């Protein structure tokens, strides 16, 4: 999936300006990091891509389609093409790991056999195939994050967004998680990871977008 931001601004009703004049272009199959202090606008930028928020100025093109032209009813279809991983993993603790990962497929109406196959493939990918029957509550922080990743990729999204996916994890687990994203990127998924872990980002040697007080201050380099 190809993403293009053209002078995008987001001003909240409170008057706070979360983003202003943000422009960048993420190629199909590219992997990039988004860094900046907390409050710099990283999460807002992710929310605009998910259509959780709408920009107040500028254009966001996804595969050439202006997101402003999508109606409210088209939002679910858009979100099915994007996988998201959040720091607070947003897992549901009233069901097993398997059913957490299955959710995006159930939502899009896949048939049960297909669901079982794809869920196990995704769990296998993150190394949790043997934990499918567990309740996510019984898993460690790193494992929970990987369940979140499995859920994000089970639908074979073309864009993978991760907002501070390694926030609570130790360096070794963080590196593992980042390697997973790299693997997905290698099979053609566009990946954007928001992280304030500059050392880790630098090691990954990918494009780095840096936000400061809602403005894009650096695009390129390795941080």
């Amino acid at each position, binding site marked *: 999936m190809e993403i293009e931001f053209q002078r995008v601004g987001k001003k909240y009703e409170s008057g706070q300006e979360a983003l202003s004049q943000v422009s960048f272009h993420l190629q199909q199959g590219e992997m990039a990091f988004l860094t900046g202090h907390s409050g710099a606008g990283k999460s807002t930028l992710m*929310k605009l891509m998910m259509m959780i928020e709408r920009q107040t100025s500028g254009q966001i093109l996804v595969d050439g389609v202006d997101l402003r032209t999508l109606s409210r009813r088209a*939002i679910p279809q858009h979100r099915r*093409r994007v996988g998201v991983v959040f720091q607070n993993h947003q897992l549901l603790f009233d069901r097993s790991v398997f059913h957490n990962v299955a959710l995006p497929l159930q939502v899009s109406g896949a048939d049960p056999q297909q669901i079982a196959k794809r869920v196990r493939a*995704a769990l296998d*990918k993150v190394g949790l195939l043997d934990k499918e029957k567990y309740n996510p509550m019984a898993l460690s922080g790193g494992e929970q994050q990987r369940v979140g990743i499995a*859920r994000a990729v089970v*639908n074979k999204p073309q864009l993978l967004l991760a907002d501070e996916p390694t926030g609570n994890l130790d360096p070794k687990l963080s590196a593992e998680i980042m390697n997973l994203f790299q693997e997905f990127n290698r099979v053609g998924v566009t990946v954007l990871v928001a992280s304030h872990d500059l050392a880790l980002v630098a090691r990954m040697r990918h494009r780095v977008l840096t936000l400061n007080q809602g403005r894009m201050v650096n695009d390129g380099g390795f941080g």
Partner: protein
Amino acid sequence: MAQKPNQRGATRESIKATKHHWPARSSFSLGKYLRQHQATLTESFMRLVSYPLSSVMTVMVIAIALSLPGGLYVLLKNVQSVTDQWEQQSVITLYLFPGLEDTQALALSHRISAQADVVSVEYISKEEGLRYFEQSSGYEQILSSLPENPLPIVLRVIPREVVDVTTLPNLQALRDQLAAQQEVEYAELDAQWLQRLANILSFGQRFSYALSVLLVVAVFLIVGNTIRMAVESRRDEVLVMKLVGATDAYIRRPFLYMGFWFGVLGGFFASLCILLLSWWVSTPAERLIDSYQSGFELQTFNADEIVLCLTISAFVGVIGSWIAVNRHIANIELQ
């Protein structure tokens, strides 16, 4: 379940295969649609079962609210059937003008008895009337002290039709026709009790309609409130579903089915209550009615009415939850 090693590769292949284009919009298939609905139907029922106490309470409140108008309906149905079956010989009493000669009265009597809708006419002269009155009233002293007989000539007309609910309008028309005769001062149809009963019945019907409307509204509110709490308790789930691309219809569906189950179960227990209640009162009720009319059998909810009750309650459940869900799902937005 053991995983075959080649599935990992298969996933990669499929990711590669779809990487350059948007996935085809999932095409509509009836089989898929029905399967999803069937799954949600079962799932929402299991969810009710997994919170037995609150589910049972909600269902019982709905059942009680529905069994009140249902019971009233059965009561009215029985009263209606009793009045429908009630037959009694009808009599129209004509009081003629006091100054009328016997010959004129007799001529009228003959004319009336010749009518097709009249069986016979009994002629009661002033003297006969007086004698009858003296015997039955015990006012001989007062009557004998009067200078002349104050009673009019009376004709007792026996119409061909007996009095029941269906013939009442005809008999009333006959009475009016007889009352219009110039010799007749006043005509009375001895069926006031039936008219009164019919009035009470229509009053009861209106009363039960009003009560039904109120209680159905109550069921709406009960279902709405229960569903609102269910949505609230599944807030996280709703948020995650929105995040992974669930449509509002998909999110709404389990709650609509939950409302459906509340409605169906409420209707079922309401029907059960009514059947039990009818059975409980049937013996004394039949004994009571039998003393007036033989062969009375208490009517209860029949199969059609049970189906109707279930349909109405299921409908109310779904609509009630629809309203609640729409309002509350819109309030739950990703942030």
